[in-house]
């Protein structure tokens, strides 16, 4: 257990230490059968249910994406790569991809950096430790739908809290929806509000596994606290940082509910689609209007590809920039 504190990097966890041989000497047949097959029986429900409702739909998306498949007109014809070709020419698709990427960058980068700082602050001896930890993670228990509604009002154009605050210090109000960048910022702010503390706790879990004497010898050598943070803490929790980046990439690219609620529950994402994300556009194409399942599936699959590409890019970037220790 102690070796797996924090977010467990999958690769390391994949090889379980050999468990001691213990079950022998069952003589009667039922016992033998029990020993041999019940393990498979116990893990089977996961594989069956995940296979049917998790993996199969994701793979089947590829198949559906090759069809001109619409609910209302009743068409279902093989179309090859036609959907993908149309997508490449679809300005609204590129717009949605642009928005998704922008909101992703704007939310993930500050989120993980602040989470790292926050974890570093939490990683000391202090009074009211549990209370302070609860304080930073409480946004995570609120529902995305509720968060969207609340922040839509905080960032309201005319009477919103933020514009009111800006007004009191003499700034002009900001058009939080009409301005593309401002809308991205507001949506990214929601995401960060909800996830920063959560990621901080994951980092904290990893930080607590670092032996404290490393720091003591470093400070004897005269390394500043800041220096210790960058050259001891960050490299040693690198697997956890990589893990959170991958997970944030997967989640961030699928962002749907925040921008939906921010735009009063409409999938169009603003009058000019200025904050419509890919997931929203997929929804718009698939579950409203003509219900173009094929087209939506093609888009889903492209989004899947984007997630893989960006997860890999981020992985490599962070691996390079955060130097690991010798081990």
């Amino acid at each position, binding site marked *: 257990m102690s070796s797996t*504190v924090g977010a467990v990097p999958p690769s390391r966890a994949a090889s379980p230490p050999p*468990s001691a041989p213990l079950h022998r000497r069952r003589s009667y047949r039922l016992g033998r059968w029990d020993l041999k097959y*019940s393990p498979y029986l*116990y893990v089977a429900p996961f594989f069956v249910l995940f296979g049917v409702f998790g993996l*199969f739909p*994701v793979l*089947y998306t590829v198949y559906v994406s090759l069809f001109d498949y619409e609910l209302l007109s009743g068409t279902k014809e093989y179309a090859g790569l036609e959907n993908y070709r149309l997508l490449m020419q679809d300005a609204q698709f590129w717009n949605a991809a642009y928005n998704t990427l922008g909101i992703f960058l704007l939310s993930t980068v500050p989120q993980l950096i602040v989470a790292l700082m926050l974890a570093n602050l939490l990683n000391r*001896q202090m009074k009211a430790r549990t209370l302070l930890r609860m304080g930073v993670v409480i946004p995570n228990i609120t529902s995305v739908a509720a968060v969207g509604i*609340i922040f839509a009002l905080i960032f309201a154009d005319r009477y919103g809290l933020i514009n009111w605050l800006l007004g009191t210090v003499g700034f002009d109000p900001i058009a939080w929806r009409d301005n593309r960048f401002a809308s991205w910022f507001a949506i990214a702010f929601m995401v960060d509000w909800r996830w920063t503390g959560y990621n901080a706790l994951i980092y904290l879990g990893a930080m607590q596994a670092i032996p404290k004497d490393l720091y003591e010898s470093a400070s004897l050598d005269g390394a500043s606290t800041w220096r210790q943070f960058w050259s001891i803490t960050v490299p040693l929790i690198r697997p956890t940082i990589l893990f959170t980046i991958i997970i944030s990439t997967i989640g961030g690219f699928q962002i749907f509910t925040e921008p939906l609620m921010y735009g009063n529950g409409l999938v169009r994402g603003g009058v000019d689609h200025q904050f419509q994300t890919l997931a929203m556009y997929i929804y718009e194409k698939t579950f409203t209007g003509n219900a173009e399942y094929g087209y939506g599936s093609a888009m889903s699959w492209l989004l899947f590809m984007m997630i893989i590409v960006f997860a890999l890019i981020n992985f490599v970037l962070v691996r390079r920039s955060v130097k690991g220790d010798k081990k």
Partner: protein
Amino acid sequence: MTTTQTLPRSVTPPPVPSRRHGRGRLPGAQLWQASPLTYLALILGGVLSIFPIIWSFIIASRDNSAVYEMPPTPGDQLFTNIDRMLANEDAAFIYGLVNSAVVSTVVTISVIFFSSLAGFAFAKLRFRGSNALLLIIIMTMMVPTQLGVIPLYLMMVELGWTGTLQAVIVPFLVQGFGVFMMRQYAMSAISDELIEAARLDGCSTWRIYWNVVLPALRPAAAVLGLLTFMQTWNEFLWPFIVLTPDTPTVQYSLKILSSGLYQTDYVALFAGTALATLPLLIVFIIFGRQIIGGIMEGAVKS
């Protein structure tokens, strides 16, 4: 309660002897004592975290004419607003709450059951291919299943499940993260001798699971249950796709409220968000320590 306290063992800092000796003498040891500035920063962070929630409760207690009034001070209309919100038949809020409670409970029990069963098998039973199977389970945690919603939806249409609760329950009955978490806990919490002893007493594998393993896994199961319950309660996209306004979950009800009441009855809408958040807030306040422990163990974002 006493059993649940034992779980976050790796949450409380692992005993590091050198810290005891060093404190007070070495300058570096100072690092581990929180400074007033640290407290200040953390308290500020906490205020920033809690403020939007409190603020939404404040709006929920006001009259519509006072929604935009600053500074944020509570009004006295909370219960009137709740009444009016509940009376909104389109949103069917109470029905949404009940549905969410049913869905979250069933999913939670199922995830705990299947996860502990498989986790036990991976941690304590020997079988061919177990390493490969475990690797597959870990990889499933990385699959963005949301991207399969279109075929999943077509499947639900095929089964005739659209608009029914099983559509939002059955696809979530198992969870890779849960299996992995239970396996990790079972490795450390259950000794091989205990299982061997049970076998010698003539217990079948199922009996061992039910009478020995499951009770020993209770602390981890509690954490998994809390995380699963909260996650299911907050689920939005899939219920929004597959359910109909006649059978909403609470998040769906909120969505209906927000499209219907936007700019007309703000305070009722906020009464809705308050009521949808309250159950989880209560759970969080009671089990905060366990939930934090679970997240620090490496919970996975949905």
